[in-house]
């Protein structure tokens, strides 16, 4: 009676894997994983941009706190940051949904890494570009906004993709604080059925792979579309 690979545990719970109890209850499963990843992705892009720009500021009073923050976050395990946000944010600001504390944690953590990618991207633009723009009379923020960043961001796309693929996978750590994303849903079903851990975890491994692969494919397409060095 025991098959080697019992697919029915997947098919029976497929909707639960995909969207949790939605629409009758909160969103869960793959849906929640994507929600956490996309929101954190957007927030950490801007967070990283701001941190990156602050950390190359001319003013030490701005630069050093930014660098200290980046190094602090990079020196901590993500799980620790998730715990910190989970316990700290409600203590500071009252009740906050677990989803949001996880989004905060993922965004802060990824922002710190993103900021270094952005600094490297800015440093990678030849000095002549800044000098040319400066010599036409543009102010330094205009040079950054119109000349340096548009070029730097395009060069950074591969590194961004790396970071965001990590981010998609990192959402799985949210299960530790009871956020019902894909991994949490899988452990729930595993605890309930007790007999099919191989099937369940092989399935979610494939789902994570598909999510990440879809994202890298999307970004390859984006990279081609944004390529401006048409003559090289």
């Amino acid at each position, binding site marked *: 009676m025991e098959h080697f690979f019992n697919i029915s545990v997947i098919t029976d719970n497929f909707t639960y894997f995909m969207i949790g109890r939605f629409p009758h209850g909160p969103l869960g499963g793959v849906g929640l994983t994507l929600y956490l990843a996309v929101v954190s992705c957007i927030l950490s892009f801007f967070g990283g941009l701001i941190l990156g720009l602050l950390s190359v500021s001319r003013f030490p009073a701005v630069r050093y706190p930014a660098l200290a923050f980046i190094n602090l976050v990079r020196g901590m395990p993500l799980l620790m940051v998730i715990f910190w946000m989970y316990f700290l944010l409600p203590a500071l600001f009252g009740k906050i949904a677990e989803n949001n504390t996880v989004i905060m944690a993922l965004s802060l953590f990824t922002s710190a890494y993103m900021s270094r990618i952005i600094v490297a991207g800015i440093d990678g633009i030849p000095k002549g570009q800044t*000098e040319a723009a400066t*010599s036409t*009379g543009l102010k330094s923020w205009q040079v950054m906004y*119109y000349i340096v960043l548009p*070029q730097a961001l395009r060069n950074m796309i591969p590194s961004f993709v790396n970071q965001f693929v990590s981010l998609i996978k990192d959402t799985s750590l949210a299960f530790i604080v009871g956020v019902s994303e894909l991994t949490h849903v899988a452990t729930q079903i595993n605890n309930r059925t007790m007999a099919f851990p191989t099937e369940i975890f092989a399935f979610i491994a494939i789902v994570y792979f598909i999510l990440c692969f879809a994202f890298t494919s999307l970004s390859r397409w984006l990279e081609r579309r944004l390529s401006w060095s*048409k*003559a090289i």
Partner: protein
Amino acid sequence: MIIFKGVHKWFKTLHVLNNIDLHVTPGEVLVVCGPSGSGKSTLIRTINQLEPINEGTLIVDGMDLSDKKTDINKLRAEIGFVFQQFNLYPHLSVINNITLAPIKIRNIPKKEAEEQAMELLTRVGLAEKRDAYPLQLSGGQQQRVAIARGLAMKPRIMLFDEPTSALDPEMIGEVLEVMKDLARSGMTMVVVTHEMGFAREVAHRVVFMDYGVILEEAPPEDFFMRPQHERAQQFLRQLLTPMQSQ
């Protein structure tokens, strides 16, 4: 128009500009030459403060660069700068390379800025390249676009830092033609170059530098025919007959 008075500059311990006194009058075309490392590039880069000076007085277009209250961006808008490596913005089309500064700084409407840019592109002979990207152009074409970009702000001074040194020999002529045109139109120009033909034809004065010092300052005919300083004589010999100079 440009006045250097006892200007000094150091890079760490290297004395790159040593007590420079120089006066450029409106409409003058000044050629600066000298061996590499002589400080000529640094000299021209101090004029729009790409390199700040350490000591002395530098007055450009009536504004004192050693005065902290001087709005340097405002001054830079009045000075066009052409680089050895062109430094066009690779992510912008030719027309946008030229119109960026006029639109963002002078607040000129886009349409008007583009009309002006087309006039300049026609002047440098590249009107048909308006929508090309810099990397699709040859070096000579890129440099002509860079000159158009410099002119788009309607500058009162144009600075050229070895504008033909990165070009293949057959492209040097087209860039020099544009520069000669500009010189004849009465633009105040400071040109760092080794193109002695250009210097002879349009320069009003030639300055020879070495070790951060101005060693000789003369009208081109005197400089080329009767160089006074020994280093200048040696430099000219090497420039004119590089194979037989040793």
